[in-house]
């Protein structure tokens, strides 16, 4: 079977549309945050007020406003990001004629705004007030379906809903569809919406970064002072295809999907993080063996550490168990991209091209309990092969190994 490569990358995140906007934000170490609407009074006192919101991003170059109005926000983000990915892969519609395109998108919360509006209408006005439009867009696979309609994608169409592990799981699923020849190309990644209710509930679970003394909020991955993550919305989409065909058509080769591993830590509560990093590390080591690799073959970790108190502890434990003498350089791009919407996945692809390899934003004080310090030095050389790690609330874990193609 021909290896699978990434030939396109599209992002719509709070920092703007297009991978260049994300690369610039990562290099500047500056998350783009905005005030979340707390007027419903659902947030607890002294909770997070900020999120990496994306509704201000102009999507009109990739999605006509008239069509956008007939979509939920996660669908809009996904269609725009998918179009950007196809554009960057130099794969226009006419080049796709006769071929099959699949779609796999991860989402943690689905189309939260429409689902909330619908439930609110039912509860306050009665079931007659339920909107059929809101209902059809409230299903978790609505964004993937809208991408399929927009891009004539007639291959598999799947929404992966495994919280923080969703984006790499979607890439793994899509890569398998491509590898097995079930489709010619696959769009894979994530899309997410952070509405005030989701933000308030995350705040109630004490998952979000809390305001600091200066009134600001920061995700501080692996830092002793971390209090939580920055919730992010938007979409990140990769285009995957078989390497042989990508080379034949002269497509940009952004990365090769060397393989993936998935695991689960059953010590995790439904709303918490696992406490058995060794078991996850054993699983990852086994996966690397299946790929014909050892931990020493990896020269960069693009970590899913987000500033979460428990999540970063688990992540650090896995890295320490895998590399007892210390891991290779560790980047934690969620300090800039925020949690959800696949920014970490996009950052991993960018890293292979030598972009966004900056010190981890928000990190200053190592946490002695973690024993892992993210990269804080000068610019790094582009890695040969990297590990993108994604551990999830509830116990799931997914890892991708990407390498230079």
């Amino acid at each position, binding site marked *: 079977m021909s290896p699978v490569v990434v030939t396109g990358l599209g992002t719509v995140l709070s920092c703007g549309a297009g991978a260049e906007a994300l690369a610039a934000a990562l290099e500047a170490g500056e998350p783009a945050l905005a005030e979340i609407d707390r007027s419903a009074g659902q947030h607890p006192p002294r909770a997070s007020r900020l999120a990496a919101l994306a509704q201000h991003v102009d999507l009109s170059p990739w999605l006509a406003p008239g069509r956008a109005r007939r979509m939920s926000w996660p669908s809009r983000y996904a269609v725009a990001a998918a179009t950007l990915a196809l554009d960057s892969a130099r794969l226009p519609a006419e080049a796709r004629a006769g071929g099959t395109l*699949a779609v796999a998108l991860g989402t*943690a*919360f*689905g189309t939260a705004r429409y*689902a909330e509006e*619908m*439930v*609110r209408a039912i*509860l*306050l006005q009665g*079931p*007659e007030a*339920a*909107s*059929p439009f809101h*209902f*059809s*867009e*409230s*299903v*978790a*696979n*609505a964004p*993937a*379906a*809208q991408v*399929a*309609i927009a891009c004539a*994608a*007639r*291959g*598999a*169409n*799947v*929404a*992966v*809903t*495994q*919280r923080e592990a969703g984006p790499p*799981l979607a890439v793994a*699923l899509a890569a*398998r569809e491509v590898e*097995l020849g*079930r489709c010619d190309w696959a769009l894979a990644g994530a899309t997410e919406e952070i509405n005030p*209710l989701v933000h308030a*509930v995350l705040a*109630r*679970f004490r998952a979000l970064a809390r305001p600091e003394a200066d009134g600001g909020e920061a995700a501080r991955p692996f830092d002793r002072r971390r209090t939580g993550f920055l919730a992010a919305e938007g979409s990140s989409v990769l285009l995957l295809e078989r390497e042989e065909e990508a080379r034949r058509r002269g497509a940009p080769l952004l990365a090769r999907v060397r393989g993936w591993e*998935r*695991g*689960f830590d*059953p010590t*995790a509560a*439904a*709303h918490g993080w696992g406490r058995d990093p060794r078991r996850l590390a054993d*699983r990852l080591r086994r996966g690397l063996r*299946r790929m014909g690799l050892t931990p020493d073959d990896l020269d960069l970790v693009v970590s899913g550490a987000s500033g979460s108190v428990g999540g970063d502890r688990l992540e650090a434990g896995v890295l320490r168990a895998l590399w007892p003498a210390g891991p290779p350089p560790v980047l934690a791009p969620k300090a800039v991209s925020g949690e959800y919407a696949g920014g970490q996945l996009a950052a991993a692809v960018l890293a292979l091209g030598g972009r966004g390899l900056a010190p981890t934003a928000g990190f200053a004080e190592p946490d002695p309990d973690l024993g892992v310090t993210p990269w804080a030095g000068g610019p790094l050389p582009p890695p040969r092969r990297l590990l993108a790690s994604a551990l999830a609330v*509830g*116990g*799931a874990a997914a890892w991708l190994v990407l390498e230079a193609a």
Partner: protein
Amino acid sequence: MTAAGRTRVVVTGLGAVSGWGAGVDALWRGLSSGRTALRPVERFATGRHRTTIGAEVPAEAVADGAADRRLSLADRFALAAAGEALAEAGLAADELADAGVFFGSSTGGMWESERFYARLIGSEPGRPRLAAITSQQYNGPGDAVARQLGVGGPVETLSSACTSGALAIAAALDALQGGEVELALAGGSDSLCELTYAGFNALRAVDPRPCRPFRADRAGMSLGEGAAVLVLETAAHAARRGARPLAELLAGASTCDAHHMTAPAPDGDGAARAIRQALAEGGLGAEAVGFVDAHGTGTPLNDAAEWQALSQVFAERAGELPLTAPKGAVGHLLGAAGALEAVATVACLRQGVVHPTAGAGPADPEMGARLVLGGPLPCPAAAGLSINLAFGGSNAALLFARWEPAA
């Protein structure tokens, strides 16, 4: 390995929770009876809806201790079905450390989230307790199964509306054939909630009477709830531990219509491509399929599109193939529908009969389908096909065969 070099994967355990209660036996008896478990919904008020019926899981069918109530209903359905499937497979918890769990759910713990939200906005009395929604996520049921069983392998939840359960089974098959795991639990779980009930009512997709798949006067779907789980393992793994295969899972395939958000493509092309892909990957010709367990929601558009797909793939033989659909008996289980129908397909293969299609009236003469009506139809088929269609144009096909050890 198959002739095509693929690893053979077998089903060694089945579990189900449905409107007929707990257990595959209860489901099979209900399906075989030709009667329906659809009845007035009791969980919430339905007086202002177009329909008032649904196939609710009887309260006594799932665990209801204090600890269980911290789980969502969908979680509890999933745990009950998984427990039954594992017992039939003869697997103990200590054999599951490296297993995978692949689950479909379209709403997870939405019912519990609705109650939380009602209290949050003051439309119901009481304090909104976070504990009530710790398992709210789509991934709640699959994670609950993995957590309870101490699974350490891949855990993946897919939420592609009504194909979710079938896609989860197909994903498990890929993981087994790809060498990632040797043992997996695959299935789906969903509970009735006000969002989906009101949503399908708002779309005018529901029939006030119990749904009547493939009938001329069909007028919409009926909702159900529940869970179904299959234990899947490589044939080599099953042989090593002396497990008895119930059937072989030959293939799982999925496609998309890319046509409309809620309506299937009328020509059935997407579903036909999924069926053809499943046949190709399973190494079977269309003539080897002995019966079809259809999605059969009872909506005019779905059943017509499905029939078009079957006509494309099976040509003249489409009218000879026994065709059945469980939704007239148990309603539409949404994210669990594909899993429950997979269980029904395996049960048909094991029993050598095809269960009838509950619902009143003769088959739609426009179609010319050989709809199984009245009672079980003897059908010692070598292979059976289960298909599902979903919102967003997602299609899935699962191909099962009677287990035949290699000569």
